[in-house]
């Protein structure tokens, strides 16, 4: 009896550690994907070049490693615990009994699951866009550079790349693999997404947000203090471009 109790306590501790790992990895993934988006936004513009594309490859390689590790761990977490305790007959089979902490664990794991899959979907759409853009602006020859769009962006992805390089995830040092091709990368992620959705049934609509709406505006989130003050001048810069002029030539039957 006591050994069973001790086993479940150990299991709970282990799962708690694994969840912590997953949460940190989720944050790292968020960082990498947002940097990837910044890089992808410069594709096809005057800031495009081989440096940018190499950085993009590095970034997505990193993202891929995080994704692989996260998906494996999340699958393990959620299939260990078995299906949700709500409404299933064979509860005796479950290792984690119907204890209230078990239900909470399950909810936390499901939340991580939903967060990871949402991040995966967003990253996939970015990858597809990037693939399309690279196809359209190949940059194989020198004269291809004339086709690039003058958007006003000159440079500036160096710091973004540095940010990517500073990302740490728990298992990154262990696995080192070469960067897959972009199309293969997309296929692999799609396969991962569908596999995860098929293997574990998670009612994702039952997950609820942990914070109320608009909390990010108050600067209550960690890491945002100190960044807010600089924003005022930037906002003024952008607002200053808005001149409320109503040129007479442009009244295309609009009122007011």
């Amino acid at each position, binding site marked *: 009896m006591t050994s069973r109790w001790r086993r479940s306590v150990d299991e709970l501790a282990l799962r708690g550690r694994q969840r912590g790992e997953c949460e940190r990895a989720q944050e790292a993934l968020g960082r990498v994907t*947002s940097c990837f988006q*910044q890089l992808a936004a410069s594709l*096809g513009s005057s800031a495009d070049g081989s440096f940018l594309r190499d950085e993009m490859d590095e970034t997505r390689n990193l993202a891929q490693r995080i994704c692989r590790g996260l998906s494996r761990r999340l699958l393990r977490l959620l299939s260990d615990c078995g299906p949700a305790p709500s409404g299933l007959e064979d509860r005796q089979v479950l290792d984690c009994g119907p204890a209230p902490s078990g239900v909470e664990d399950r909810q936390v794991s499901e939340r991580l699951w939903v967060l990871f899959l949402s*991040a995966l979907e967003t990253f996939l759409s970015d990858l597809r866009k990037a693939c399309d853009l690279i196809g359209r602006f190949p940059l194989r020859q020198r004269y291809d550079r004339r086709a690039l*769009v003058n958007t006003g*962006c000159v440079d*500036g992805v160096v710091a973004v790349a540095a940010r990517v390089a500073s990302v740490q995830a728990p298992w990154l040092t262990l696995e080192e693999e070469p960067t897959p091709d972009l199309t293969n990368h997309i296929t692999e992620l799609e396969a991962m997404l569908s596999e995860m959705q098929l293997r574990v049934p998670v009612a994702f609509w039952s997950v609820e*947000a942990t914070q109320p709406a608009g909390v990010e505006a108050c600067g209550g989130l960690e890491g945002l203090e100190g960044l807010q003050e600089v924003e005022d001048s930037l906002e003024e*810069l952008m607002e200053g471009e808005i001149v409320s002029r109503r040129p007479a030539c442009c009244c295309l039957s609009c009122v*007011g």
Partner: protein
Amino acid sequence: MTIRTARPDRVQHFRPRMHCLKKLEAMMVEMQSGVKGSEQKLNVTTIPHVITGKDIIAWITNKMKSTTEESQAFGTMLVAYGYIYPLENHKKLVMCNDTSLYRFQTPYFWPTQKWVAEDSDYAIYLAKRNIRKKGMLEPYEQAHYNHLHEWLNHKWDFIVMQATEQYKAGKERKKPDRVVFDCQERAYWIVNKPPRHTHSAMDCGPERLIDPNSDEKITFDTYRRMNLFYQQAIMRSKVKSSVSLGALVKYITTYKNHDPFLAPCLPSNPWHTDNDTYWTMNMRQVEVPTKMRVERWSFSLFELLSDLRGRDDFKIFLKKEFSGENMAFWEAAEELKWGTASSMTSKAETIFKTFLAPGAPRWINIDGRTMGLTVKGLDHPHRYVLEAAQTHVFLLMKKDTFFRYLKSPVYKEIQKKALNPEPHNFSPAQLEQNAQNRSPGIHPIILWQQDESEKAKAAIASAPVDVKAMMSKIDRK
């Protein structure tokens, strides 16, 4: 994790535009070397690659060998699609032929991406904007934010996390690039989720339920029906195009000032300003009509009779002239035409007794041949049995009574009394207010009740006077 609808995605949102957008992209690439760019100074930073509207339009005119107006329209379409965005007045997606400044949009935000702008991406953008503006979002953005917070609640933590991360990643760039990226993103979302009164070109219609790609099988029956249709078309009487076009031109010249979308209507077009004074002033039961309405009555008898308020006025005139039986017959025939099938026989009988029988109380004066046909038809009454007589009566009224009405004091008086409301002049804030406070209008049941009470009153007024009851009332007094 996104909830996707179960209906198959026929990619309706981009199909109509794909060809057009492909050609536009080629043109955008050519424009890079063609249009001269300059620098924009903002406080201490300078941002390159800013272009003026007139340079763009000049280049388009040169390239496409068209007129300036057409090039301006083309330029406006480029802005409305989101290939070029304006730097001043970013909510108005038009291209002006002057020194207003524009910039090219980066291909990542071009509209050719085959994927519709996702709600999750919009939510992340709004959260980012919330961070930057410390909660002071525009009203339409706030409405979207609240809606998305409710519908994407399961991934809201991810959205906030991603927004924070993207915000921090954006800060890593140099200042000019950061400003440019923020402008680009804002322009993208103004095109894809336009605020009120912004006309972006990314509107697409409702999803089609039929797959436009699948071939329709043409069966024997389809061919049979096609044959019938073409045979009937050949047999139809034809009119010379000069004649029909002349009629069209005449119609347009008469009515063009009365169309609220072609000419400004007073006080204001409810579809533009969300203020429904125009509709309340032109209702059925209104005491004093508007000047435009009264003017419309003078166009033809058909207009006068179609507008029920005009019909009332005409009936007042006819009562003064004591020649109301034509009008009454016409109305009774209308009622027969539009009424229920079960009431047709009884209605036909009353009409015969009142108007057509020799010696009837309100006998109408139509020619013998029509009278004979109508009476014979009344043996087996159907909906259109009075059609010939009604047309004859209509023509009588049109040729004679209508012109007398237009010259009569009744009409002149109503012309004088008619209202000419002041045009509205709403500021953008008031327009926003109007849009929020749209009235739901009058309930149709109330309108129906009003109609019924009117009909009851009219029935009592026109019921044949019971002579005996009148005499006994007078005796009692």
